[in-house]
């Protein structure tokens, strides 16, 4: 037994480390520790409610829009625009809601942020742990060659076209290209948001952006045109590359996929004969939670439903739209708690924590008091838990959780092609029809190189071969690669929801027509629906109540389920608590692990994902832990705030 530290976990947002107990080259126990506390929940006290929307965006500069959005939903709830959770449009005239145009703007700005986040995560944060970077700073020093698949080593190359080889070249070019794509998503969002990353258009009651109908239509057109380029990149390059990555790192994929990979001679990191115990690195808890998000202003139905799924159980949806949001509010009120047994905070009854077991409902907590002295406390993250039956469970949140809870992604070995099929949208198989794979990546690159090594079985169409076989047979399971795939597939879905479905034949998205006398305006997707209500209002005025009111907002951030709880008194904020995606994912242990009678020891999702993973050590140690942590796309500034 030896304790080692991996800190900093780099290429994430914020300051995270992990203490591992390594035994025989494998991790027996993991303590993930967030290393920075700033006190957002406390310094919001006494301020104007609406200022929380600007303040909480500064919780995180990588995902400010979701915080602003969730805060807007929270302030909406105490100012009477909603009953809580999510703000819907005012179409059913019950005195609640904000104008449809405002809901559209909120969705489009948040959607642009999602696309930025997902692309940035894969290319610029996660991929360098699988693809050796160019031989120059900031990508050097890199980890020992042995950690990288031979096709993904730089071989000393600083730029494409050198000794890196065709696949390495292709990936590096995509890295640079993705910098442009992430920038474009900002430019699209900023049309309505004023600027990105920190937006300035969100306000309780709607949005501040109020263009005349002509300008709004022109902005919708520009938004569409920008995202068409981004969408083509996602469809043709981003998704195929993510889907292919697992073939080169089968140990990091689930056992079913790894078995196929092994059978077609993709054995990097695996022994012969095939041993399923060597696969599925980073599987994690198998418990998933989502709050739901992206309300359709016309129907008040959520594009992504909220719900949960426990390991081995079936998914339960508790929020599909306005029709059942009351039930969601009840569920969140009854089942969401935070624990501070291992978190560096004081748990005292007069601080809202309910006594000896240190559980607390976020809506009841009024202050967050730091405490660094207790040796049992190792992280600045709290430990949120979700109650099912009589037990509280650590949950995984994020794109993977959303896809699983919504039934698009099964984790039991079911073929992905049979479930990843959303009405009106193309599923992933449409895009691994090889035409869609970037030719440099597969034709001249990966497939060519594999053929040169005598590994590829090139198909009649001249492409793909071995990777094609592997990708088309993909099964869903629990692993790092499943987490990465779900994120990319969500980007594939989201961009089509935003600008309309992709047409493989014409290489276009959605449809365009003439609106307000302007030609080539999008008429499909969310942006098309927005252009159709261009003449509407974007804001409804309501006074700030002087009575004491509590409420909350909950929606989806790129990294998962995000909730803000607020209480106002005499027109000012008197309590504010944030339960953030990475607080779930990188949660420390809770105080009741033993009482639950399971073998999880109270671990959070990332801790559980690290337990059992290899730790090779050596001169450049820790890359396996980095891969596990990075697969969650952690954001520690968010998680601790």
């Amino acid at each position, binding site marked *: 037994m030896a304790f080692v530290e991996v800190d900093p976990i780099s290429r994430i947002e914020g300051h995270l480390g992990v203490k591992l107990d390594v035994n025989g080259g494998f991790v027996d126990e993991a303590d993930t520790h967030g290393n920075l506390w700033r006190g957002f929940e406390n310094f919001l006290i006494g301020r104007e409610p609406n200022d929380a929307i600007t303040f909480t965006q500064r919780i995180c500069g990588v995902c400010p829009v979701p915080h602003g959005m969730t805060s807007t939903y929270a302030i909406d709830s105490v100012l009477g625009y909603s009953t809580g959770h999510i703000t819907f449009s005012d179409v059913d005239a019950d005195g609640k809601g904000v104008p449809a145009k405002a809901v559209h703007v909120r969705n489009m700005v948040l959607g642009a942020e999602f696309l930025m986040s997902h692309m940035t995560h894969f290319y610029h944060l996660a991929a360098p742990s699988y693809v050796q970077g160019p031989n120059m700073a900031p990508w050097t020093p890199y980890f020992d060659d042995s950690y990288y698949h031979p096709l993904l080593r730089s071989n000393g190359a600083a730029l*494409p076209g050198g000794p890196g080889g065709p696949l390495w070249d292709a990936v590096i070019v995509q890295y640079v290209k993705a*910098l442009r794509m992430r*920038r474009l998503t900002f430019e699209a969002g*900023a049309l309505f948001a004023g600027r990105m990353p920190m937006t300035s258009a969100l306000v309780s009651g709607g949005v501040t952006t109020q263009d005349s109908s002509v300008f709004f239509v022109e902005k919708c057109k520009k938004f569409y045109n920008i995202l068409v380029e981004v969408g083509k990149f996602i469809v043709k390059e981003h998704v195929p590359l993510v889907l292919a990555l697992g073939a080169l790192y089968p140990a990091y994929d689930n056992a079913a996929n790894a078995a196929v990979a092994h059978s077609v001679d993709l054995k990097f990191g695996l022994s012969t004969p095939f041993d399923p115990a060597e696969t599925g690195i980073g599987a994690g808890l198998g418990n998933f939670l989502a709050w739901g998000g992206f309300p359709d202003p016309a129907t008040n139905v959520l594009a992504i439903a909220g719900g949960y799924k426990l390991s081995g159980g079936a998914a339960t949806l508790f929020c599909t739209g306005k029709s059942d949001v009351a039930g969601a509010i009840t569920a969140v009120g009854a089942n969401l708690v935070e624990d501070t047994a291992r978190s560096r905070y004081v748990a005292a009854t007069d601080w809202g924590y309910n006594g000896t077991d240190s559980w607390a409902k976020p809506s009841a907590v009024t202050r967050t008091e730091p405490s660094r002295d207790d040796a049992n406390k190792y992280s600045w993250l709290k430990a949120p838990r979700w109650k099912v039956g009589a037990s509280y469970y650590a949950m995984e949140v994020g794109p993977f959780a959303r896809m699983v809870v919504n039934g698009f992604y099964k984790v039991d070995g079911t073929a992905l092609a049979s479930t990843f099929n959303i009405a009106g949208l193309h599923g992933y198989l449409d895009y691994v029809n090889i035409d869609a794979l970037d030719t440099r990546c597969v034709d001249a690159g990966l497939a060519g190189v594999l053929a040169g090594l005598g590994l590829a079985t090139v198909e009649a169409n001249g492409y793909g071969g071995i990777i094609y076989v592997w990708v088309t047979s993909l099964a869903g399971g629990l692993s790092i690669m499943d987490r990465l795939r779900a994120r990319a597939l969500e980007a594939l879905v989201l961009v089509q929801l935003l600008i309309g479905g992709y047409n493989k034949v014409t290489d276009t998205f959605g449809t365009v027509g003439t609106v307000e006398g302007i030609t080539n305006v999008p008429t499909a997707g969310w942006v098309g629906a927005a252009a159709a209500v261009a003449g509407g209002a974007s804001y409804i005025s309501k*006074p700030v109540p002087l009575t004491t009111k509590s409420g909350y907002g909950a929606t989806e951030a790129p990294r998962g389920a995000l909730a803000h709880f607020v209480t106002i008194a005499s027109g000012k904020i008197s309590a504010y608590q944030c339960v953030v995606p990475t607080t779930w994912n990188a949660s420390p242990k809770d105080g009741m692990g033993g009482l639950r009678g399971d073998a999880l020891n109270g671990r959070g999702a990332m801790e559980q994902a690290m337990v059992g993973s290899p730790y090779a050590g050596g001169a*450049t140690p820790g890359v396996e832990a980095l891969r596990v942590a990075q697969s969650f796309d952690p954001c520690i500034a968010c998680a601790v705030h």
Partner: protein
Amino acid sequence: MAITRRQFVTRLGALAAAAGLGQSQLLKITEAMGYGPFSPKPKVLWVHGAECTGCSTSLLSLYEDATGLAVEDTRLTAMIDPAGVSTLDALGLLGTGGTAVPRTLVDEGYNVDTSPLVVNIADVLIDVIDLQYHETVMGAGGDLAYQKLAAEMAYVPTGPLDDPFVLVVEGSVQVHEDGGAWGKDGIETSAPWCAVGMNEAGTEEARFDDVVRDLAARADCLAVVSIGQCASFGGYPACVSPAAEFGGMSQTPAYGVYDFLASHSGLGNAEDVANKVINVPGCPTNPWWFVLTVVLYLADLINGPLASGLTADGPLGILNADTTIKGGVDGQRRLKAVYGIPIHGPACPRYKYSFSAPGRPALYASKPGDEGCLALIGCKGLSTNSLCSMHGWNNQQPHNDGLPGEDIATIQGNFSGGFCVTAGHPCMGCTEKGYPDAYVPFINKR
């Protein structure tokens, strides 16, 4: 690669022309980046403290078109330097037949932006700087990263030109001996300080205040650039809840880098070290403000004090020979070229509403979404200095060449965003010392 870097920097200089610099000054910028000890590229160490990574995220979206499109249609261009393309031509940038001189990525056929005259973040990372440490971008992690940082912290240089580097700090500095509002001063274990790395054995931990102090105090640390509101002035971590229970203290003992180095670092030469600081505030900082500041500051430092062995002032008028501030910098240690103009002015598309014109009364918005000047719903543009209304954000110009009396249709002719006010949101004052506390409420919502 050195040649292409010079060309790149000269392009930046062409844009700097719009900020009021003459051509002879621009050439100094080119020379600065060819400075010998920075071979082959200026070394940069970028460290993160009590922050949100928003400024890095913002900088990743850098996009400038050196043909002047970035400042086209701005009043600034018209007022100060109408040169535009001719400036580029004079600098030899357009080559024969107007063909641009390519850079590394372009040479390799991998220019992902449409024009070879466009500057993006990939160019900066590959051609312009030698970014040795940046947690969010670098390949290393864990012990590999910690050892790199620890070695830089422990290195004892022989002099200013030993291994010269620029330190960029993102985030405020929490002083680990101090306790903030929770009154646990002096108890090292109690204070909520920021830790940024540990060795594999877990026996050494890097505290962020030590990181900033040790790196900034190195004799060969040539400049300390505070990017963002938090590093410049403390920002959100240093803000104070109006609730009486916190006694007027911030939640954590967080300071801007200058304040930290000057007053809380315990350094014997605190004043000298703090004098290396140049602030680039914003929440977040616009990528262009950052690039402009760094390029101008380094050009002055290198061409003047360093090239002369600390006997000559900087040619751009920023630094004295002894590297103390001479001019061009305001009381908040911001470059006047970047932070010299209030947002509320002719460049703001809503400015014209603030006064009446023939046939048109003044018009003030009374709630979000209204047309008109936003001053009455909380706009801080009068007391906020930045290039926002002139240069804009996210490759979108506020299109601010409308004259008083023109309607919003003319002004918003490119249907863009550009900055907060174009989105109908009051300016929040994020570039100013005292933000956020002195600038709330951000919206007087009705």
